[in-house]
């Protein structure tokens, strides 16, 4: 009985963990299919340190505003949305980088990513469709 309870607890914890990670999905333009994008690459890309893909042209960042942003940015670049905005204001206002495009709606972001070679962004899992590719960042 104790073993079953422990197993159920582990399963519940695993399900919770997966759902937390699954709250956002990184999506990319289909021309990123050949790119190796791990967690370090994602961080470099979202901080503006990596500006070009190995074979897919220039990086274009798309950032979704709202609750999802805090969770994604904390996990990916260790910043909250406010700090991330300030980071990019600093870069773009001092000649240090090209600011991301910010979107209010996931559908608009997904369409932008689908239409823009080299674009990468994040949305909720329900907003992913076949027009973009999911990127696991692992």
């Amino acid at each position, binding site marked *: 009985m104790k073993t079953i309870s422990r197993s159920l607890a582990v399963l519940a914890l695993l399900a919770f963990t997966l759902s937390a990670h699954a709250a956002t999905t990184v999506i990319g333009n289909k021309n990123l299919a050949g790119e190796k994008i791990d967690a*370090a690459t994602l961080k*470099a890309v979202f901080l503006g*340190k*990596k*500006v*070009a*893909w190995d074979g897919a*042209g*220039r990086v*274009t960042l798309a950032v979704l505003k709202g609750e999802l942003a805090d969770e994604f940015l904390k996990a990916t670049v*260790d910043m909250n949305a*406010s*700090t991330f*905005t*300030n980071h990019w*204001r*600093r870069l*773009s*206002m*001092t*000649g*240090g*980088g*090209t*600011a991301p*495009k*910010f979107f209010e709606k996931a559908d608009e972001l997904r369409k932008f990513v689908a239409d823009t070679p*080299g674009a990468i962004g994040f949305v909720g899992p329900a907003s992913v469709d076949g027009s973009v590719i999911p990127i696991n960042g692992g």
Partner: protein
Amino acid sequence: MNRPLRATSIVLALFSANPLTAAVSIGNSNVQIGGFFSQGYLKSSKNNFPFESKDGTWDFREMAVNVSTTVGSHLRVGAQGFAQRLGNYGEDKVKLDWAVADYNFRQEIGVRAGRIKYPKGLYGEALDVDAIRPFIFLPSSLYNPVLRDFSASFDGAMIYGTISTAKAGSFDYKIFYGDIAMNTDQGVADFFNDSGFFADGVKTLAIDHVSGAAIDWSTPLSGLKLHFSYSKLADVDGVGPFAAAPMFTALIRVAPAYTTIGAEYAHGDWTFAAEWQNQDGDSLVQALPVYNSAGKYGSRNYYVSATRRFGEKWEAGAYYSKSRDLHPNPSATTAEKQLEDYAVSVRYNVNEHVILKVEFHSIDGRFNVFNTPRNPNPTLADSSSFWAIKSTFIF
């Protein structure tokens, strides 16, 4: 319309403005337009510091507009015009703040050329971007707004990059060389005029070159960044007619080297920062053939600051900042040799484009408090204070 009314009208107009789009796409290129406009009010007691404001002044504003685009995968070009008015300094004249061609070969190495922001200290490159902090004024010991030309940007080239490691965090480095365009319209001229050595003020400002390096270490400890930078201004010359005998040309030359160590730690809603800077170098004061004196010039500066966010709208901060003359006149009093600044600030984000700030400073000492025609302080007090409000519109 008088100045306060005009300034108020501008601020009200900004409040009613619709948010702007920060990026515009033209054809296959990606052109971005950004900028900011701020208008403030400042009133100081006793001394005109940081600029003329004893009677209260609306002559306190900054504005910038930048345009940038990318060409191909690795090249980015852009420029920003900047104008400011700080009391009698700046006069709203538009200057080229930065204009760069930036080729990023890969994450580890890139080359930037043109007019480039000067990387000195944690916040040197972002001196004018007040939207990224709660403070109206950065600590004056390291970031004196009146001496902005010493620190804003340089004409030259920079090599930069990021070295990422698996366990030790990442290192952002910058190595640069160039010169600085200084203008007698700006506050930096009063650094020379305060000496009283020139008749009717310094007429030309020039520098031989500036060189240096900066490294920022994003440590494995979440939120902790460490900074080190070293740079040297070679032969900064102020030239004008000699006050005692205007038929002779007077020269003041300083050659300061800046060594700066800093740390910033962000944890939750809190951000703590501290920096220490040693500024030291040779000086030369001449009005040949009647006067010639060589010596040293420099100061030791530091500050500690703390800020805290309160939800999405509010942020508060405080800092203590101190600057001490390293080579004072032997007869100088304590107040003449140093300046301590206690500051508290509150910021309110009206929306993502409009910011309001209010700030109070208590000042002990009068080191680097100028007495010049543009910043008159005929009787300098040993302590003073000032408060400021400022609204910023950023897009």
